[in-house]
């Protein structure tokens, strides 16, 4: 699944072993060097969605000679933070045999460094090079197919990884971090030559996170047929880590969408709401479920992302219901999707009466206080062939009394709410009286 892409060679990160440059302390006089290009053996990406940050850990097998070895690492046209690049031997043997003596940043290039590595036991060793890069991101998306009766939704979650880092990471194992981390400087700024002022992030934070993770598992092939990759989820501190099964290759400029999970038949509730705080002034249809076990979910928080809802229009066909830019939904939190006004369930409100009473005058016979008594009528009609739930929030201002024979309850200091079921094809009228004390009548 590779397309040719032109920058492939130009942007390639290189790890060079200058074979002839043997003199350890010799100044870089000659520019002619014979080099080998060791391949990457494996690469692992840990991608954050709250910041433009990815931790890359790659492993390569290098052959070291006795004494000092010079290793050049360059990253032209990529978005790597030079202050974050680290070199580390892998395994006890390698740790005993090799050690980084110094790191030099040649004056002629801002996108290169040279490690001098001393070796006391010549052999091939595995080393890990890690660094932060910007330009790789991921996002979540959801797609829901609501059944014809609006009682259930088949929910599919996706994660999409976007690679604009300038580098192709072949066969990378991918981890996605859900959560908001703290950075003091942006990696993309640090990647600019001359911009680096210091370390962006405590490496320990990332490593702590890394240690808690298992290695990614390869996809399961029971019958020789590939299945959508399993994305494993695990909580860590304030974060959640998604591990994509197997490895992925995402060329520079490409995005790749993978299925995170699919749950069929999540029970759904339809509520018609007038809640100006949340859904605006229109009487809107809201589809609701909860990110909990009762709703076949609740195994993990749902990262923020666009949720698109379709309705089953019969014969497997779809009809578009609406889209919602969903915020991060913790476990056990409710999800409410506003699919907009619906002509099949309507609400009309009118003020049927206004009276003023308890007028108060001051010593100069000027009006300083009065009380208004307003009556309102709300008419809710359900044209649908099924019962619907209705919730109406009604806010008042000032020093008011609220009276109604309907079963309203207090939502907050200024808001009353009522929730009821409206039978198919029926209507209901609500009457309420709001008495508001103004001026000196007000006790507030």
């Amino acid at each position, binding site marked *: *699944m*590779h*397309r*040719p*892409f032109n920058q492939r060679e130009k942007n390639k990160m290189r790890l060079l072993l200058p074979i002839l440059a043997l003199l350890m302390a010799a100044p870089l006089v000659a520019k002619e060097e014979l080099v080998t290009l060791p391949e990457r053996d494996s690469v692992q990406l840990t991608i954050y969605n709250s910041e433009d940050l990815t931790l890359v850990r790659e492993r390569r097998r290098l052959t070291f000679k006795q004494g000092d070895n010079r290793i050049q690492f360059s990253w032209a046209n990529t978005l790597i933070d030079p202050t974050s690049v680290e070199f580390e031997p892998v395994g006890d043997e390698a740790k005993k045999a090799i050690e980084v003596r110094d790191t030099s940043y040649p004056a002629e290039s801002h996108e290169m460094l040279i490690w001098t590595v001393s070796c006391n036991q010549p052999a091939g060793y595995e080393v890990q090079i890690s660094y932060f890069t910007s330009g790789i991101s991921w996002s979540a*998306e959801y*797609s829901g197919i609501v059944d014809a009766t609006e009682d259930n939704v088949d929910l599919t979650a996706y994660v*999409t990884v976007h690679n604009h880092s300038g580098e192709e990471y072949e066969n990378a194992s991918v981890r996605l971090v859900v959560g908001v981390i703290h950075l003091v400087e942006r990696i993309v700024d640090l990647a600019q030559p001359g911009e680096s002022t210091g370390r962006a992030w405590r490496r320990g934070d990332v490593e702590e996170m890394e240690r808690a993770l298992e290695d990614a598992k390869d996809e399961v092939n029971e*019958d020789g*047929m*590939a*299945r*959508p*990759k399993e994305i494993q989820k695990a909580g860590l501190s304030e974060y959640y880590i998604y591990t994509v099964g197997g490895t992925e290759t*995402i060329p*520079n*400029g*490409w*995005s*790749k*969408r*993978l*299925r995170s999970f699919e749950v069929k038949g999540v029970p759904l509730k339809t509520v018609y709401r007038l809640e100006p705080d949340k859904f605006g002034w229109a009487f809107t249809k809201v589809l609701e479920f909860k990110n909990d076990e009762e709703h076949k979910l609740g195994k993990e928080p749902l990262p923020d992302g*666009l949720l*698109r809802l*379709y309705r089953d*229009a019969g014969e*497997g*066909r*779809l*009809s*578009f*219901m*609406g889209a919602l830019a969903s915020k991060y939904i913790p476990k056990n939190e409710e999800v409410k999707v506003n699919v*907009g006004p619906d*002509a*099949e369930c*309507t609400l009309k409100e*009118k*003020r*049927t*009466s*206004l*009276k*003023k009473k308890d*007028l108060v*005058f001051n010593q*100069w*016979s*000027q*009006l300083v206080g*009065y009380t208004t008594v*307003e009556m309102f009528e709300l008419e809710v*009609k359900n*044209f649908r062939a099924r019962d619907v739930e209705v919730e109406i929030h009604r806010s008042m201002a000032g020093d008011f009394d609220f009276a109604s024979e309907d079963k309203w309850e207090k939502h907050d200091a200024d808001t009353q709410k009522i929730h009821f079921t409206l039978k198919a094809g029926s209507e209901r009228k609500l009457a309420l009286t709001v008495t508001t004390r103004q001026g000196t009548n007000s006790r507030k």
Partner: protein
Amino acid sequence: MNKRLIFSLAGAALVASVVGISQPDTAEARIKLATLPDKEAVVVRFDHPNQVLVEEERTISLQKGLNTVDYSWAGTNIDKGSIVFRAVDVNSKVEILSTSYPPGEAALTWSISSPDARSEKFRLSYLMANIQRETDYRAIVSNDEKSLTFRHYFKIRNWSGGTFDSADFITRDGKTFEKGLDQGEAKRVLVNKWEKVSLTKEYVYDQYRSSEGKVMTDYVLKNTKEMGLGAIPLEYGKVRIYQDDGKGTTAFTGEDWGQFTPIGDDMRLNIGIAQDIKVELKKMVNDVENRRGNVYDTNEVDEYEIKNFKDSEAELILVLRVQGEWEMQKDSEGYTSYERIDNETIKFKVKCPAKGTPIKLKFHYKRLNNW
């Protein structure tokens, strides 16, 4: 096993689609051996108030193992994120593993796993922008203005960049019509026709609608089954009104915007001014009373003198408004009925005798607690 299948929607979308097999990792252009899959069904749905969903079916030949299917839509207005790609058979063993998006192209690539070599029918659903829709109506009113034939038209214009050879277009209320539609082409289709719809003709005096006090002629259609409608909520749209002239032809008598009308509500259409009914308003009493400090009440009498110059009696509806706290006084007179619509609005019905005989509506009210 990594055969590459390509079907594309380049340029003349939806007409030419290509399924091809190519080498996956060639350096420059992808070599394609292409066949043209038959497109079995295209459905264009307008049931969302401002989005258009297109669905199409394609049968794709898959190899055993991993298959790569390209889909591109250069030059068309497909919303990439909205694309849903599923096997039509819900029990299909075929799995869609991942979706990849190349840079700078209106295209994507699916990685599909198949248990064996087979032909599988897929359904592709996506939102498409720039397919405009419009609703309009044509009413033929009977000569006696008691009923009408109401025709509901749906007009679509295609600026999406795509071309529909033959598609089922489904309106918001579920009506289906089959049509072809080229890029830039428009079509207007009769989707509903209701005969013998009951009609109420009203003469209305309402200063909110005519500040000069002219009397409006309205037709009122009740969107209910009893009145011959009530099948669907009526969409917003222009209504052109013609009247049977009793001689086998019709005359255009006016047009108005029909507001969105849920089932059970009225659609009120103004067809023009009734010049044969004149209303003159005179303020007969305008007193201040019951002063308390800076607070006072008013005592007001508005007199409406109405003349109907028609040859027959007519009923006039006067929609009058008074702001704030007010009460109508018992000696108001000259009406057959009244209704306080809400606190600010009162509606009187007045019988107006024929041939210009004047009749007076006395509207006596007190506005209370003004300052």
